[in-house]
């Protein structure tokens, strides 16, 4: 996963949040680039140099150039000793510092830079930084500098977010579930279709990556799923089964709202001109139909 992120140059955005922090992934990328033999420049604004270098190993640290904007970015402590031009000057100086060999630039973090540099200026500087050709004036194919930018999602409005997304060739959004981190990568290479990939990973103490398979579904995480089918009618105190006779009797019942054919015909083909309704009487099996008129013996 790290190789695919470092392969194409240009701006790579690492979007993290308070819950899913991205600095460990940034350090993993920096270490990978350094171990590949590249020169890595880090513009550190949010953590101290010791903290950033911690855990990267001696090899990687020897190829790492840390430009410290953490200790005294605004020249409060000793006026005149800090980087001239403030944060913007430091960023522009990075553009000039990358030498002839392939280089990677890590910006920790872009949110800090956005607080101190206007968004438009920052975007122009980033564009200049990422478009820089590695062999100027040479006939060999131009290799772009890879710029890794750490971005804190909650601190960013939709405007700057959109501007940075447009500049970026690759966007990595960090999230996760139940203690596992996932990186959703959107590749937006020029003249190619946008591609999306999701990786589940964890960063090991030496800042190498441990990739996981697709996160197991929560049901699989629970041990010993009950697969045996249990028949619910086995241990009941009442009888749910039907004997053959009972089944036949049940099938031969007529339902209460079942229409006789006479009534059905009368409903389907209503006779016009009939003012009053008609009564259809269907005697049940238990009805005692007596043809005699019960009112016959009345003496009226």
């Amino acid at each position, binding site marked *: 996963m790290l190789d695919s992120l470092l392969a194409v140059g240009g701006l790579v955005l690492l979007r993290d949040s*308070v819950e899913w922090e991205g600095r460990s992934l940034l350090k993993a990328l920096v270490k990978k680039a350094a171990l590949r033999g590249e020169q890595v420049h880090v513009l550190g604004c949010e953590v101290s140099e010791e903290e950033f270098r911690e855990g990267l190993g001696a090899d990687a640290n020897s190829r790492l150039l840390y430009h410290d904007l953490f200790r005294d970015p*605004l020249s409060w402590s000793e006026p005149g000793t800090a980087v001239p031009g403030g944060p913007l000057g430091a960023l522009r100086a990075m553009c000039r510092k990358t030498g002839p060999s392939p280089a990677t630039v890590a910006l920790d973090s872009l949110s800090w830079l956005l607080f101190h540099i206007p968004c438009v200026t920052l975007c122009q500087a980033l564009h200049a930084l990422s478009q820089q050709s590695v062999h100027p004036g040479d006939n060999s194919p131009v290799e772009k500098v890879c710029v890794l930018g750490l971005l804190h999602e909650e601190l960013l409005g939709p405007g700057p977010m959109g501007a940075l997304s447009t500049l970026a060739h690759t966007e990595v959004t960090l999230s996760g579930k139940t203690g596992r981190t996932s990186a959703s990568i959107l590749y937006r290479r020029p003249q190619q279709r946008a591609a999306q990939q999701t990786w589940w990973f964890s960063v090991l103490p030496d800042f190498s990556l441990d990739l996981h398979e697709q996160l197991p579904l929560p049901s699989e995480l629970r041990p010993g799923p009950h697969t045996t089918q249990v028949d619910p009618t086995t241990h009941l105190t009442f009888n749910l089964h039907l004997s053959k006779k009972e089944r036949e009797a049940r099938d031969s019942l007529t339902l209460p709202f079942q229409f006789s054919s006479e009534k059905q015909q009368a409903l389907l083909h209503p006779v016009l001109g009939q003012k009053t309704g008609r009564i259809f009487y269907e005697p049940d099996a238990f009805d005692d139909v007596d043809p005699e008129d019960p009112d016959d013996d009345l003496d009226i």
Partner: protein
Amino acid sequence: MFPELNNLLSTTPDRPEQGKLTLLCDAKTDGSFLVHHFLSFYLKANCKVCFVALVQSFSHYNIVGQKLGVSLTAARERGQLVFLEGLKSSADILFHAQDQEPHPLQFLREASAGNLQSLYEFVQATLNPVDSGETAWKYPVLLVDNLSVLLSLGVGPVAVLDFMQYCRATVCCELKGNIVALVHDNSDAEDEESNILLNGLSHQSHLILRAEGLATGFCKDVHGQLSILWRRSSQPTAQRDRSLTYQYKIQDKNVSFFAKGMSSAVL
């Protein structure tokens, strides 16, 4: 300090962690009990404490501190506690003639939104170890109550974040001390500046303690809920951002913590 909270955070005054930024935030409730806890904790841990108190007077903290077993007056006299009383100092700076040296709350005098450089220089001067043969304190601690007041006083969120960054560089990284700061969370009031400050500090913190009122409203026996989030541990995967949630009840001299739904009043 509250012994139960020490257990939850796995710290003791004898061996506390160093170089950490602890963020206290409260939403829909008053989180100042956490400030009192940390103040008494670090005084008992024999640390030099610089307390920037912008909300309450010295006597308020002193009275609560006495209930928790520390005397702020004695600590101030022996030099362990440096107390910047914002309420009194602001009256001084606004109504008295300006001194030669800049006042920590100099930004109150400035018409436009200034920066907190003078406040930072006050903190730095206070906590830098002085080689004058005085008692060696363990390490310095900066306590701020609270940062949201600075936003209300007209300082921009970026200026407050810059101030906190400079304090971190000096207190946490250089002097290996700790910082504890309280920020109010008004997420339902759509306060953009407050959100920027809270989120910006959350990204820089090692430990976030968040006191919230109960979602169901006010209760006599459970005063709120405390979420604890550990971030940025030195080993990336050993303790992957642990988080715990407990409910609490504030008593006269103590705060009792219990798991959600396990209040003794309910059981």
